[in-house]
């Protein structure tokens, strides 16, 4: 029987960074992936002359080579910084609501302020105060709040995190409302809520603040060759360090002995020994289906009860036989809405009725190699809660999928009217596609619904089975930076456990 220090279940972002960190620190690691390719969401596929980015719209946390931010350090420590090339986006996004507003915000902290003040001069004071608050709340959230918590001192908390104390658990909407009058400005500044799928009234303000500040100050990025290049680079680094990977091979069971992890049964029936498992599968799958025989520990069951299922996505991958200029693209990322009401937009995310808004990303706008010469790689997205797809009969699935795709293209064509004329390749992905490739209930792409009640600050870590660790969007924030970081930090916790086990063995 093969024996490993650790088995990592799933080669999504967190699984990849966890496996790479474990192996590079000397733990003998087996990485399992059900599919034929690493990445989970962080992947690409080829149709005709096009290679489509599946999920990465804007990578955060990288900073520039001159002003590097945390992700460069993380990628460097994983041995992949020199294996990939990053492409900077120069705009945050274009927000177009026909008849209401059409504005492109620059990816620059000073430029953002300037642009907003130019557009809304009457709100200058509010804009300055709001942006300052975004910056401060980020610094407090990531620097002084952890210090104060470690010290356990309320005094320190109040002194070092005064803004967090006031705003940390306020909703994004209430802070926006406190600073701004004009509904267009409110929509414009809150647009990133569409990345989360939960409206501004239900997300904590720091979640919005950190996106605005991080993208504007540290820039949004793409990866040459798409997020697949990073997934492949991580596998390369993992293999170089001596790791073992098996594709087309899922985990069937996590085996335990006296309540602690003792091994993993593979899809092939083979059993491998290990005392540590890092599961990149959802905690629901991990505890309710993979864990052998036993009920999840009570606190885990209790935690599940306070969760709600998160959003999935409906995505159209378009290979277009025209240039970005011919399409009228002026920024890589656009949000196109039919209404300024985020509540109305959000309500539609739970239905198969025509969406009221969507996103368009043109990958070759800033990176010409992302499409063949003279052509464009364009991806349309609207977030959608997956449950409505569960009631679609299998024989109606294709029809329903294409009908909804037409509706999303209709929305986007109000601003980019020529999309349909130039289609050379198209692939449509629904929440069931996400379910197929991510193995998540309802095709959730970010784990549980990321409302205020989902905050990690309100929750214990999901443990209770010694040796079992979870690393994914389900136990923290969703998205690329958070999941890359979740895997790396989970590996550090797992390494301590592995080390303690080795010490124990040595003493016996």
């Amino acid at each position, binding site marked *: 029987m093969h024996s490993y220090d650790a088995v990592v279940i799933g080669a999504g972002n967190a699984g990849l960074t966890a496996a790479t960190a474990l192996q590079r620190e000397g733990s003998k690691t087996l990485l399992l992936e059900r599919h*034929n*390719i690493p990445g989970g969401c962080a992947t*690409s*596929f*080829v*149709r*005709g002359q096009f*290679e489509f980015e599946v999920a990465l719209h804007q990578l955060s946390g990288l900073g520039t080579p001159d002003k590097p931010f945390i992700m460069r350090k993380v990628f460097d420590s994983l041995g992949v910084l020199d294996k990939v090339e990053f492409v900077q986006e120069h705009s945050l996004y274009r927000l177009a609501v026909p008849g209401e507003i059409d504005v492109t915000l620059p990816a620059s902290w000073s430029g953002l302020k300037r642009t907003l003040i130019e557009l809304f001069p009457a709100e200058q004071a509010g804009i300055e105060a709001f942006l300052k608050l975004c910056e401060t709340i980020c610094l407090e959230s990531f620097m002084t709040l952890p210090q*104060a*918590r470690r010290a*356990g001192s*309320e005094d320190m*908390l*109040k002194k070092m995190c005064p803004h967090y*104390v006031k*705003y*940390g*658990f306020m909703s994004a909407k209430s802070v926006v409302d406190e600073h701004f009058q004009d509904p267009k400005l409110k929509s414009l500044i809150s647009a990133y809520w569409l990345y989360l799928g939960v409206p501004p009234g239900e997300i*904590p303000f720091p979640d919005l603040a950190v996106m605005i500040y991080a993208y504007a100050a540290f820039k949004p990025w793409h990866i040459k*060759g*798409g997020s*697949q*290049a990073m997934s*492949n*680079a991580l*596998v390369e680094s993992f*293999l170089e360090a001596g790791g073992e990977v098996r*594709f*087309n091979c899922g985990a069937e069971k996590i085996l335990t002995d006296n309540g602690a992890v003792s091994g993993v049964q593979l899809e092939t029936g083979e059993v491998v020994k290990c005392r540590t498992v890092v599961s990149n599968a959802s905690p629901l*799958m991990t505890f*309710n*289906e993979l864990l052998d025989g036993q009920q999840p520990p009570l606190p885990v*069951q*209790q935690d*599940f*009860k*306070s*969760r*709600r299922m998160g959003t999935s996505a409906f995505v159209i991958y378009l290979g277009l*036989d025209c240039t970005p200029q011919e399409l009228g693209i002026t920024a890589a990322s656009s949000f196109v809405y039919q209404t300024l009401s985020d509540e109305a937009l959000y309500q539609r995310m739970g239905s198969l009725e025509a969406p009221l808004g969507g996103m368009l990303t043109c990958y070759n706008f800033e990176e010409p190699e992302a499409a063949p010469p003279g052509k464009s790689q364009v991806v349309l997205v609207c977030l959608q809660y997956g449950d409505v797809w*569960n009631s679609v009969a*299998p024989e109606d*699935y294709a029809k329903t999928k*294409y009908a909804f*795709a*037409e509706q999303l*293209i209709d929305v986007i064509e109000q601003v980019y009217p020529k999309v*349909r004329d*130039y*289609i050379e390749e*198209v692939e449509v992905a629904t929440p069931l596609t996400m*379910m*197929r490739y991510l193995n998540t*209930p309802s095709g959730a792409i970010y784990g549980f619904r990321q409302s*205020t*009640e989902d905050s990690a*600050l*309100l*929750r*214990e870590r999901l443990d209770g089975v010694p040796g079992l660790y979870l690393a994914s969007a389900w136990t923290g924030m969703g998205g690329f930076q958070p999941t890359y970081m979740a895997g790396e930090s989970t590996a550090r916790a797992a390494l301590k456990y592995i080390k303690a086990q080795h010490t124990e063995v040595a003493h016996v």
Partner: protein
Amino acid sequence: MSDNNLLNAVAGFRDAMAAKDALAQTGSDFTEVKGAVAKTISQLHPKRLALTVTQIVEDTPSTKTLRVAASDSRLLPPFQAGQYINVFVQINGVETARPYAVASSPCERRYYDLTIKRAQGGFVSHHLLDAVQVGDSLQSSGPMGSFHHNPVFHGDDLVFLAGGSGSVPARSMLLNILHNDLPFNFQLIYANSFVDDVIYADELRQLASEHANFRLDEIISRPPAGFTGRSGRLTGEVLRELLGEQLDGKMFYICGPTPFNNNCLEQLLALGVKRRRIRIEANGAPKSPDQQAGWPQGVSLDDEVTISVRGKGSFTAKVGEPLLNSLERNGYGAENACRSGECSLCRIKLLSGAVFNPTEAHLRKSDRDFGWIYSCVAFPTEDIEILL
């Protein structure tokens, strides 16, 4: 959490905690959705189908149609007309597979019809035609592939150019249109070598006479003496005559042997059809990769090379044999479906040595960069080591 008390000082924290606890009062531990993901996915995209052959019909001297049903008698997964399943077989101890387009209508889910033509020098087609009997079990992938009508941009004016058994997906598309009364025009330009080897000949002619929106144009390349029908090759002139002047808005599907496909593509482009209006079905690994640009000088298809599988063993293979085939013949294997360089399931890592990736290999950029190859269309041009 140990510092709950501390965070109580944050405005709104208590409320959020109370809201979370309220959710727990009405929420579920999700055990009721146990198995739901696997069930939903297996209805649409099963990894394997257990099939039983329920009927075999001899279509022409070279061709039979195998009707297969789910061994558990359930309905088979839905598919889009034009898609294929990959049929797994074991022949003389060798485990291999071949993709076959479904010939029957997607409206019929009690069975799939697989029309199989004897391939020259074939391995699997001979087995399916000669050895398989009614009642036998087969295994396959679920339905796959992107060679199908896509309502988002294909439109309603469809032309299918089929060569030989390339008519199989055309039949499924046609039946789908007729069964569902879709408002499409469907023209099938159907090229065959011999008059007695035209698959579905009677059925197609009958349907064409009954349905105004289905037009059938046949052409025979090797006509017998006295043949009065259309004969010869599909030249640009013939195509112009069959298609008429108005080509805008039409969507073209091409499926047949590789030389047929290449010829049709060339002629359509010459007639001014945009490349984006032409869909070509994948066709397996190229027979003559050495004719493609980039083939290394001095390497012949008959040369022998050593294939080492790290940690498992090694064997000798011919340069001209696709790597997946030689792996299978030597007791190895990789998951696979299209066997034509498109689906990427047979992706494996090349550790050392070189392979030739033909134009059929639709590799991702970063797979190329990091040495991942599609074994179904990779040709080892020197000794190689791979990771399985």
